[in-house]
């Protein structure tokens, strides 16, 4: 290739560098949600379809792995189901599934009348994110706002960290920023939940700052305390959401306190159907608390 041609293309590369630099500066100074929202609006339907297809493929793969007899009986059952479904409306399946999801949360809703729940489906997982944040198919148009707690029928999953019109990004409890108040439901002792990359890889959260005379023990249920944690997330989660069960109690590496390894109640790495708590008693106070402490990432 000629030198002149290289010079020309180098000029274009420099131009792109300057443009991208300006874009980075503008998104650092202002919010990126305008750009991101527009692109998300375009990509969201495709993400939804690809996630649904993947689910279907996984289900089919599971089917082929079963025995012939099982397949035959399952086939009969499925034929009957198909005939049945054909008589229904086109969105019947979605409505049914949503209804079943809501049923799982009925107990939670009855216990907490103040909760406003919104069903959502996980449609994407960013492979470039070291902490495995996920994208759900509900956004600001559906009533989701930043920092809304996200749960499954098993317990707490994480919080909404970024909102677009039709989708939202959810940060899970395995993120390094996930610091929030928690309480042992048996002993009523409180601690601060956090996570390291290593403990996340092993599938555990840490309940820190337990007293050296702690009575917390293996098998205890850990729930959110609703207490605020400076520089953390606490205060935004409503009280008594299940976090997990205590696996073991050990001495802290850095001080005299103890910490408990907590096995999350929710599959934090591969969640599928979730609920967003769009409103709960004390949410506005929690939001003010976050705003005054500068929020979280």
């Amino acid at each position, binding site marked *: 290739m000629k030198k002149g041609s290289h010079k020309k*293309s180098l000029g274009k590369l420099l131009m792109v560098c300057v443009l*991208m630099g300006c*874009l980075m500066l503008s998104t650092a100074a202002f919010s990126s949600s305008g750009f*991101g929202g527009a692109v998300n609006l375009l990509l969201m339907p495709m993400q939804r379809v690809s996630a649904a297809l993947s689910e279907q493929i996984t289900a089919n793969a599971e089917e082929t792995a079963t025995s012939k007899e099982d397949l035959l009986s399952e086939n009969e059952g499925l034929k009957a189901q198909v005939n049945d479904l054909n008589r229904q409306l086109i969105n019947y399946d979605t409505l049914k599934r949503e209804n079943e999801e809501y049923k799982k949360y009925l107990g939670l809703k009855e216990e907490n009348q103040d909760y406003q729940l919104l069903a959502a489906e996980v449609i994407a*997982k960013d492979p470039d994110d070291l902490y495995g944040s996920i994208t759900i198919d509900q956004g600001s148009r559906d009533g989701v706002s930043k920092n809304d707690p996200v749960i499954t029928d098993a317990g707490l999953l994480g919080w909404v960290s970024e909102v677009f019109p039709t989708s939202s990004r959810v940060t899970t409890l395995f993120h390094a920023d996930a610091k929030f108040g928690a309480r042992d439901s048996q002993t009523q002792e409180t601690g601060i939940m956090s996570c390291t990359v*290593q403990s996340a890889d092993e599938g555990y959260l840490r309940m820190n700052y337990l007293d050296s005379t702690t009575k917390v023990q293996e098998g205890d249920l850990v729930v959110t305390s609703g207490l605020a944690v400076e520089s953390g997330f606490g205060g935004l989660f409503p009280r008594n959401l299940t976090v997990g069960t205590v696996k073991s109690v050990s001495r802290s590496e850095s001080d005299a306190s103890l910490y408990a390894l907590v096995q999350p109640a929710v599959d934090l790495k591969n969640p599928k159907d979730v609920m967003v708590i769009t409103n709960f008693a004390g949410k506005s106070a929690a939001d003010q608390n976050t705003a005054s402490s500068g929020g979280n990432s």
Partner: protein
Amino acid sequence: MRRAGALRGMAYGAEFLLLYLLQQVPGLFPEISHSLPVLLIPAVVTVAFFEKEVPAMVCGLFCGLLMDFGSGSFLGAKALEIAIGGYCVSFLASEFLKTNLLSAVVSTLALGGILSFLQWIFTAFFPGSSESGYLLLYHLLPRTLYTAVFAVPLYYLNRFLATRLRAPADT
């Protein structure tokens, strides 16, 4: 000639969009050492082997912007890195490297490694994370290796697209 170029551009665009969606589908690829492959990196590298610097840079820019939108980080950061990466790979491929599968895999490893290193510098090392070494060794390195595996099918796919969708005068 222009028509063939536009067709190739559209084909690459569709390919990138499809790969972006695939890499984001939860549970589609198995996690290896807590890592998932980033399919757009081998896609850009393999396209760069068959295209000139500026088209390769544009491909990198497009893929980088897609990743930026998906990650919620600084808009333009990944776009800038991958655009420069695409440009450099194309330049090296035209001047120094042989266009073959081995070069494509090695280039993917190199670009993936540089991108992972940059991510490590800005998200773990500079912020002073106590687990920066662990992150590099157990997350970023496996991800780079996992990503490079996909250079094999994408090399053949992009070679097919580049040779089939090219006007005779271009070849």
